[in-house]
């Protein structure tokens, strides 16, 4: 018998019950519980960038996902996010530039000659930008790089520069002209979305890697491939491996590791950071036809889950038909394993799929979506003992079994998982959130994309344990919603800090186990491949659950066969009964027949229609869905704060601040900067002001770092008492208001500790 099956009987538990009193007059008109998010329908459609301004102006679009030109259309507002990294790459084929000292000297002269910041471009000769949460931790190095560029000798740049389009404009008055043929160095731009498409994980509700938005990580993606010297490459990969496997003992050590990694990446000057560009996306701000309550991601912009979870049509308190324009036609296949990787796909999946956690929109961490993690425990050198009733995945088959012998882990993360119904009306069970682990191991050796996407998870995961299933009740008077909430422990091989540990292996899957099994069967039989890479390698179609008639037909036939056999995957035997399997297969068949596709998820929107140019998504207002209209309102309209005064008193820094305050009225709002006011005691507010700091010693080593919310007399207190030995330091400080760390003002305060 499966370790989970008998004692808990989890598979038969309903995930939600809804009690609606029928006769009582208790409730008013304002039952405030509307599952899912504001728009009742989302239409995503291809619109050429040249046509988009006009469509926005005549209210045919509510927002345009993707950059537009520099002229803002009428009654629109810009949303800014990180678009790309601008860098210089020396010609690796040219023997003249084989020497790093020569490269670095030439780069220094070139940087001094390039155009300063203008428009959407910012000059910053350091890889970590203000759109990365770790910008503060590199603040001194950023300033040093800028200073070095300012102070570099002018003139004498005799490079043949390859640069096209807008990059050529950066050559400005330097006297340099873009080279047509032979070249010494190239000005290049690396689009963040291209990095995301290649490196991010977006597999059945898992997102990652946990550090996907960190500046140091993206610097590695951009610069490591340019490093040719073997020793340097080895040092880089060693630093990276230490960082991603938790090979550090303190926050300060981690930060030094990250700073060292960035230094190693750029030290040889094969690729030299020049600056970055932001993406300006347009939202319709018209009084009637516009949208409001906008949240976005500092890096993904409007093409993010948080946008779809906050955007509200001005003409509707909730509901309404949202129309989004996209610059490119959907090209990637629509499957939840290794599909949805292009701009259109990511946006559609942001609505259909529902990850365990969402990237923090204005920071580098993660915010709860369908799982809520308790603070991780463990990290003792002796480790955490793995209980005998935990499940350990077989590395080859993925089958989950009780550990054969005593096991220890470095860390345990406990989750509460918010189940709901799938679009096919079946109820989620523990089987649905456990099976993805089995899938990851089973398929990592059979598809390179799955191998890459699950690498961190498999590297870290030791065991899974379902502790129990709790009931959680939300009471809205006549309406009571009762959720079944599994509590699941995940045991990890390494230790990570809060904010990243929970994103490594969350117990979650957004599609039902039978859909995973159906896809597996289709791929096993050679009807399709999960990833584009594997499809190309095998000459098979890329698995698309909606848009390829031949695949739909094949899936229908397979499904009939699996339903007839009441198929249960080996990893779920004992956890799913034959009767339950029959019900699941029948539900999937009915759904496919009714809707013409197989994209069943437990997400907030359902695929209604599609074409070559886009899709229509309908809201799922099923009462079992745990997030509601307004759940993410706290992430709309990010606000900032600035340090206006920093005074040292003993071992403490006392900070005074200005903060932005949002004033909403009618269908608009204004943001006002004013002195930060402490709220009356006890007042609940999302706008927690936090001081982040890092202390750097004379040798540029981070010796302390942390954050503080302590307040005294209207001031924020950063207490460094007992953290520093005698010496001279610089304290890097920035404020985060409501978690917003985008484009912070970094203050550098000299700080000496006497004997």
């Amino acid at each position, binding site marked *: 018998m499966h370790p989970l099956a008998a004692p808990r009987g989890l598979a038969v538990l309903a995930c939600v019950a809804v009690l*609606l*009193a*029928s*006769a*009582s*007059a*208790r*409730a*008013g*008109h*304002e*039952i*405030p*519980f*509307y*599952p899912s998010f*504001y728009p*009742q*329908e989302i239409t995503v459609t291809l619109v050429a960038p040249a046509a988009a301004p006009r469509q926005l102006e005549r209210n045919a679009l509510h927002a345009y996902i993707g950059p537009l030109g520099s002229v803002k259309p009428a009654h629109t507002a810009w949303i800014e996010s990180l678009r790309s990294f601008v860098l210089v790459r020396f010609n690796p084929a040219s023997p003249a530039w084989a020497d790093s000292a020569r490269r670095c000297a030439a780069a220094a002269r070139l940087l001094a000659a390039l155009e300063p910041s203008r428009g959407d471009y910012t000059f910053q000769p350091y890889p970590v930008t203000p759109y990365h949460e770790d910008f503060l931790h590199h603040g001194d190095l950023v300033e040093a790089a800028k200073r070095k560029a300012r102070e570099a000798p002018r003139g004498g740049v005799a490079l043949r520069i390859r640069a096209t389009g807008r990059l050529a404009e950066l050559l400005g008055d330097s006297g340099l002209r873009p080279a047509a043929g032979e070249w010494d160095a190239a000005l290049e731009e690396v689009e963040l979305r291209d990095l995301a498409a290649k490196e991010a994980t977006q597999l059945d509700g898992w997102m990652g890697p946990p550090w996907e938005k960190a500046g140091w990580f993206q610097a590695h993606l951009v610069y490591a491939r340019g490093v040719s010297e073997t020793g340097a490459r080895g040092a880089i990969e060693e630093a990276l491996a230490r960082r991603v496997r938790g090979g550090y003992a303190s926050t300060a050590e981690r930060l030094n590791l990250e700073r060292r990694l960035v230094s190693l990446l750029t030290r040889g000057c094969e690729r030299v950071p020049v600056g970055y560009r932001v993406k300006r996306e347009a939202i319709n701000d018209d*009084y*009637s036809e516009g949208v409001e309550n906008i949240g976005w991601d500092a890096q993904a912009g409007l093409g993010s889950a948080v946008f779809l979870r906050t955007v509200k049509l001005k*003409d*509707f*308190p*909730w*509901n*309404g038909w949202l129309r989004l324009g996209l610059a490119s036609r959907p090209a990637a296949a629509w499957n939840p394993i290794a599909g949805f990787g292009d701009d259109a796909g990511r946006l559609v999946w942001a609505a259909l799929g529902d990850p365990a956690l969402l990237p923090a929109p204005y920071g580098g961490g993660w915010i709860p979506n369908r799982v809520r993690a308790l603070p991780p425990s463990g990290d003792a050198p002796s480790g955490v003992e793995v209980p005998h009733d935990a499940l350990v995945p077989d590395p080859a088959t993925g089958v989950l079994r009780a550990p054969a012998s005593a096991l220890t882990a470095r860390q345990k993360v406990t989750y509460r998982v918010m189940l709901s119904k799938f679009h096919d009306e079946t109820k989620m069970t523990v089987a649905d959130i456990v099976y993805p682990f089995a899938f990851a191991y089973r398929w990592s050796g059979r598809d390179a994309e799955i191998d890459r996407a699950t690498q961190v998870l498999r590297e870290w995961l030791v065991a899974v344990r379902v502790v129990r299933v709790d009931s959680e*009740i*939300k*009471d*809205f*008077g*006549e*309406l009571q919603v009762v959720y079944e909430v599994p509590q699941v422990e995940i045991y990890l091989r390494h230790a990570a800090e809060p904010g990243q540990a929970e994103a490594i292996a969350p117990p979650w899957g957004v599609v039902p186990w039978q859909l995973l099994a159906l896809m597996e069967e289709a791929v096993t039989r050679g009807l399709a491949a999960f990833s584009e890479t594997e499809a190309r390698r095998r000459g098979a179609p890329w698995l698309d659950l909606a848009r390829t008639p031949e695949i739909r037909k094949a899936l229908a036939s397979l499904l009939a066969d699996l339903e007839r056999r009441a198929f249960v995957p080996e990893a779920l035997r004992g956890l799913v009964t034959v009767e339950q399997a029959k019900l699941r297969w029948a539900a999937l068949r009915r759904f496919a027949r009714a809707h013409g596709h197989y994209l069943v998820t437990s997400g907030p929107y359902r695929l209604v229609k599609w074409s070559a140019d886009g899709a229509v998504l*309908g*809201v799922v*207002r*099923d*009462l079992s869905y745990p997030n*509601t*209209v*307004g*759940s993410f*309102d*706290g992430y709309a309209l990010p606000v900032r704060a600035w340090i206006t005064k920093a005074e040292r008193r003993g071992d403490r820094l006392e900070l005074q601040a200005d903060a932005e305050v949002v*004033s*909403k*009225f*009618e*269908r*608009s709002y204004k943001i006002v900067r004013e002195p930060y006011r402490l709220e*009356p*005691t*006890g*007042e*609940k*507010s999302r706008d927690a002001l936090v001081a982040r700091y890092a202390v750097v010693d004379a040798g540029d080593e981070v010796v302390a770092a942390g954050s503080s919310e302590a307040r005294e007399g209207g001031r924020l207190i950063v207490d460094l008492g007992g953290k520093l030995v005698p010496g001279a330091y610089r304290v890097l400080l920035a404020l985060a208001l409501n978690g917003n760390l985008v484009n912070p003002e970094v203050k550098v305060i000299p700080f000496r500790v006497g004997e």
Partner: protein
Amino acid sequence: MAGEVNRRDFLSTLGVSVGAALTASAGSVIPSVGVAHAQDKPKGNIPDTPYKIGHMTFFTGPAAVLGEPMYKGQLLAAEEINAAGGLLGKRKIEILKADEAAGTDANVKELRRLKLSEKIDFFCGITSSGNTPALGPVAEELKCLTIFVDGCTDFLWDKAVPNPHYIFRITNMQSADGVTCAVAVAQTWPKIRKVAHIHPDYSYGRNAFDHFGIVMKKLLPHTEVVSEGWPKLGTTDFSSHITKAISSKPDLVVSSVWGGDYVAMYKQALRYGMFQKAKFASMIAFGVAPHAIGKDHPEGVIAGVHSNYHFTYPDGDRWPYNKSFVEKYHKRFNEYPNFQAEGGYTATYILKTAIEKANHLTGGWPEDDAVIAMLEGQMIAGPAGYVYIRPDNHQGYKDAVTGFSKNVADYPFPILDPARIITIPIRNITAPPGWPKGEPTSTYTWIDKTWPVAKV
């Protein structure tokens, strides 16, 4: 009163008026809102410690469209009072906010925390009728002086707290919505025969349907219900309900669908030409916030305001309290107030007046019981008109209001046509003191048992 009467006579007896406006009498002794200075020098020693108000309403989610204005209304009043020195000239009001969206259980805990840990002096707010029946008994248990701004269910006084001491409520009761809408229909369109209904399939919809129906039975007994549509909570596609209603060829479609659901419904109904095919009456079409409704909303329909308040009424020249309130509110918040804003504002001034009266009688800072004694039976001139706190059930009563939608150039949203406002004295459409508790509400059984049937 039971028996048969002429419909017009009976409507006249009810005090229904169309297009009328209140008039503030010069030299009135009734206290009014917006007068921030203390009327008399306070008696005795008044502490200068802050007067803490716990204000709980929706700051997030769909109901924030109601909650934010409620808070703003109270904030405006508090700022005015503080600018004049505070309550009794000494105690500045400090408002502690709490988000009602946390859910009923969490709200109960938060009320306890506010009272026991934060030591609030007064609790105010609440939008949801799901919350007042849960919070009312707790406020009584905590001996926490409370004025609910909304949470208007009849159930609060009928069942949850039938003998209140510490808690009061200021907005009209829910049953008034159906009654007011039906009276307005009887007054305006007496010749209708066939009525189709579309109501949300939860208790507010049932309540609206029941109270509309019982009034129709009395005032327009010749009418028949030809269609019923009960969209479930969360419905976004109303087309089946709309087409069902249209296919029954009604003279009138009645609906209590509200908020974003109503907007989705009326925009779908426009596509089906529903408003050309039948008259339309709603209990709550304009009962959200003035700016929440678009200019494409049909004109000339009965667009209820939860039977409470619309900022264009009473007319400014004849009722300066409203004109002054609307101007101050708009200047402070760049928007027009809804009924929740008016409720939050008036509740604060009712409290202030009661405190002043109690101080006048007892000297010093008055005990809560003294304030309660002054609240009971108090009448105040608020932006919406006169508000009277009935001493037996602690319910605020003001004239029920409804009207007809109209687009005017002055506003980027439709308003109630100022020339066609319908008002009904609330006491004439609500169960009187001492009436036995009834099902589904006391008002329902009172109408059923006492109103005459109008002659066809």
